[in-house]
């Protein structure tokens, strides 16, 4: 049995080979990519040595586009076609976007998610975000000289299901294999906690360009347990720019401005905000298209005054998160500051005052999320060092179902540790009712109209009964990415229907495929070849995983007959690999998967049993 295995040239079957994985911080203002190299998490720079990629995409005629600094440089000149802060539009309808009228974009209110009209055609936020991700993927593949096994992409903890789904779609569109969607504050805590070997309760205060998150975590013996999270997915550094912008208009008594001047003054506002981090005051000078010259001075005190309301808006969710965690300020051992916006001195002061402790700033607030994501990506990719720690995250917002009268029945409460499953029974309203409509919503309010609508679906084929007699069990399952799956089942007949919740906002697989085919960068990419390549990689992974499971537990947990059946399927899969037929490989994989299902269940049982047996032994020894 113990034959030596020799990999085919180019198949890369060495199980201990370092797998290339990255962490990506897809930010409102800037994005970064990081990886673990020689045991250290590092940000990958561009060719000019810059870590940050401005999250700016500029479309030019003929479907071409540019991303990052070149796009940012032209944002005042070409405001309609240069998209900044696209993250604010992810999974959002036009009515959800604050200040939509003040942005220079030509919005198209498409079903579910807003779209933007550019010179290169109408673009969805998912497509625009995918351009940023593709740029970072290219940077990483060049720097690491190889294909990526996968990526961990961070999202604000307070992102709802629609926003998460949109992020996942963007990653798929950029050709990235998503290992996990990771909450930004949790990623920061990983980077911070592992660096400092800390234990205890920590708060992560994360004020990004367009989102605010507060997470309360407990770090204990290598487990990062998120106790509560809260935030505001439409509050960030951009809003501070906006306040300065309004202050400029007021001080200079300017009439409503055109898109060029608006963009210019917003840029000046941002520069003034950044200058105030280092200096007591900032000069704001600009030449408007009308020829009028602008020359103002903003000092730190006025800046703090005009933005006090925004600072307070971050402290409300902070109080709520502490309350949800059942903790008070005194229980918090340290506060980790994340996001470039936390550099503002009056934010630092407000947080220090609130928590009665100086915030921790020893990691670069712009990089800490990407660094943490890279550490998690390295572990999830199966590289070493991941056996001893674990992230236990939560869902930020409650999930529920609409009931009679437009009220929400909460099924999964916010701050539930994921993965989480919950079921609730519903019944029919009318005699003989054979179908039932379900409306899935997310949010904390009691009225459906105040919550976010995630999906609608119907269960048909309910046998006719008197009202209230049918028993319909609705099951919510939230996976480790925080994404929801809903299933409804009528108990007496077993009539069943299930949805992956995405119809309202997400893209269907067909849409993603169509977009992939449309996308210029992939015009040469043959979809069949791609499917084959993916299946080959997956088959290698499956063989490797199965063989290592057999090596570890095959002896104890399988009878010789069972072992022989599995071995036969392994040989069958190996046999079809050289034939390079994607479908045949898929079938052989499915067959092997089916054959090993009971073995997997036995292994899982044995693992849990071992944990407990280990305890009983130590407890006996202690006594």
């Amino acid at each position, binding site marked *: 049995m113990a034959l030596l295995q020799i990999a085919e040239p180019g198949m890369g079957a060495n199980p201990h080979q370092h797998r290339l994985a990255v962490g990506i911080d897809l930010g409102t203002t800037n994005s970064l990519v990081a990886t673990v190299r020689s045991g250290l998490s590092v940000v990958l720079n561009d060719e000019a040595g810059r870590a940050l990629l401005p999250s700016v995409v500029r479309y030019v005629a003929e479907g071409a586009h540019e991303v990052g600094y070149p796009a940012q440089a032209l944002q005042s000149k070409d405001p309609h076609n240069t998209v900044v802060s696209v993250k604010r539009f992810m999974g959002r309808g036009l009515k959800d976007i604050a200040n939509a009228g003040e942005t220079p974009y030509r919005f198209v209110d498409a079903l579910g998610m807003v779209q933007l009209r550019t010179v290169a055609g109408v673009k969805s936020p998912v497509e625009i975000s995918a351009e940023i991700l593709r740029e970072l993927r290219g940077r990483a593949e060049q720097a690491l000289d190889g294909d990526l096994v996968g990526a961990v992409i961070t999202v604000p903890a307070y992102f709802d299901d629609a926003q998460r789904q949109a992020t996942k779609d963007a990653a798929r569109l950029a050709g990235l294999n998503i290992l996990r969607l990771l909450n930004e504050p949790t990623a920061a805590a990983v980077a911070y906690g592992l660096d400092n070997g800390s234990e205890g309760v920590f708060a992560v205060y994360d004020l990004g360009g367009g989102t605010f998150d507060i997470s309360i975590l407990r770090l*204990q013996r290598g487990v990062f347990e998120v106790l509560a999270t809260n935030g505001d997915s439409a509050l960030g550094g951009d809003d501070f720019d906006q306040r300065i912008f309004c202050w400029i208009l007021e001080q200079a008594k300017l009439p409503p401005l055109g898109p060029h001047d608006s963009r210019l003054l917003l840029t000046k506002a941002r520069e003034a905000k950044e200058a105030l981090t280092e200096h007591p005051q900032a000069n704001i000078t600009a030449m408007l298209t009308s020829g009028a010259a602008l020359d103002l001075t903003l000092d730190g005190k006025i800046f703090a005054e005009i933005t006090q309301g925004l600072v307070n808006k971050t402290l409300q969710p902070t109080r709520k998160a502490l309350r949800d965690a059942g903790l008070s300020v005194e229980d918090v051992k340290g506060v980790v500051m994340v996001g470039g916006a936390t550099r503002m001195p009056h934010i630092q002061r407000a947080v220090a005052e609130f928590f009665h402790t100086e915030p921790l700033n020893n990691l670069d607030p712009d990089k800490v999320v990407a660094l943490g994501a890279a550490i998690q990506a390295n572990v999830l990719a199966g590289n070493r060092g991941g056996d001893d720690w674990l992230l236990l995250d939560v869902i930020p917002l409650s999930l529920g179902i609409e009931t009679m009268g437009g009220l929400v029945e909460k099924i999964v409460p916010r701050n539930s540790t994921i993965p989480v499953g919950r079921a609730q029974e519903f019944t029919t309203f009318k005699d003989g009712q054979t179908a039932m409509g379900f409306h899935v919503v997310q949010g904390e309010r009691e009225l459906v109209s105040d919550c976010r609508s995630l999906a609608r679906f119907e269960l048909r084929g309910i046998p006719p009964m008197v009202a209230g007699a049918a028993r319909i069990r609705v099951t919510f399952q939230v996976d480790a990415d925080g994404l929801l799956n809903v299933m409804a089942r009528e108990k007496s007949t077993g009539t069943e229907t299930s949805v992956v919740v995405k119809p309202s906002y997400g893209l269907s697989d067909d849409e993603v495929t169509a977009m992939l085919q449309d996308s210029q960068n992939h015009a040469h990419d043959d979809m069949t070849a791609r499917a084959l390549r993916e299946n080959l990689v997956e088959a290698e992974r499956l063989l490797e995983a199965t063989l290592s499971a057999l090596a570890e537990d095959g002896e104890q947990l399988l009878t010789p007959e069972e072992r022989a059946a599995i071995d036969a399927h392994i040989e069958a899969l190996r046999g079809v690999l050289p034939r390079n037929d994607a479908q045949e490989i898929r079938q052989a994989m499915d067959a092997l998967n089916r054959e*090993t299902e009971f073995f997997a269940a036995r292994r899982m049982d044995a693992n849990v*049993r071992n944990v407990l047996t280990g305890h009983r032994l130590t407890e006996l020894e202690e006594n």
Partner: protein
Amino acid sequence: MQLDFGKNYFDLFGLAPSFQLDTPALEQHYREIQLQVHPDKFVHAADADRRLSMQWATYVNEAYQALKHPLSRARYLLQINGVDTEEERNTAMPAEFLMQQMQWREAIGEAETASDIDALERLAANLRAESRGLQARLADALDVDKDYTAAAGSVRMMKFLEKLGEEINRVLDTLET
């Protein structure tokens, strides 16, 4: 799943079924089991393993949540002993307790009108003390006397207190906004 030791939550964590619980042991065993079954450990595994991992991690989370909080732990202990806590139907309460409930509600209402955050926080602290008293009674009823009828009554009272706590938090949220 084919776990026989998972037939009840206490078995899953290797703990004796009682209301008085070794909380650090529960937390430690929870973490250790999650380290074995969590989906993060199965990102590259076969489909069957990934599916099982999610089912297991979901189940372990559910069990942990049920045992971690005193109210749900008491409810669960009664459930495995075949006692329904009748929280929706049985509203019979000692007159004294109901009287106190009304006083609580009034106090919360007054604090809301006066926007008195300190008063609400004092109320929350009193409520926690009250809840600790009920927990002591539950420990006696469930672990010592095995008086499940009395325990079910205490569970119903605790449910009342939990709702009051939620109400205080709701008012605090609105006052702080």
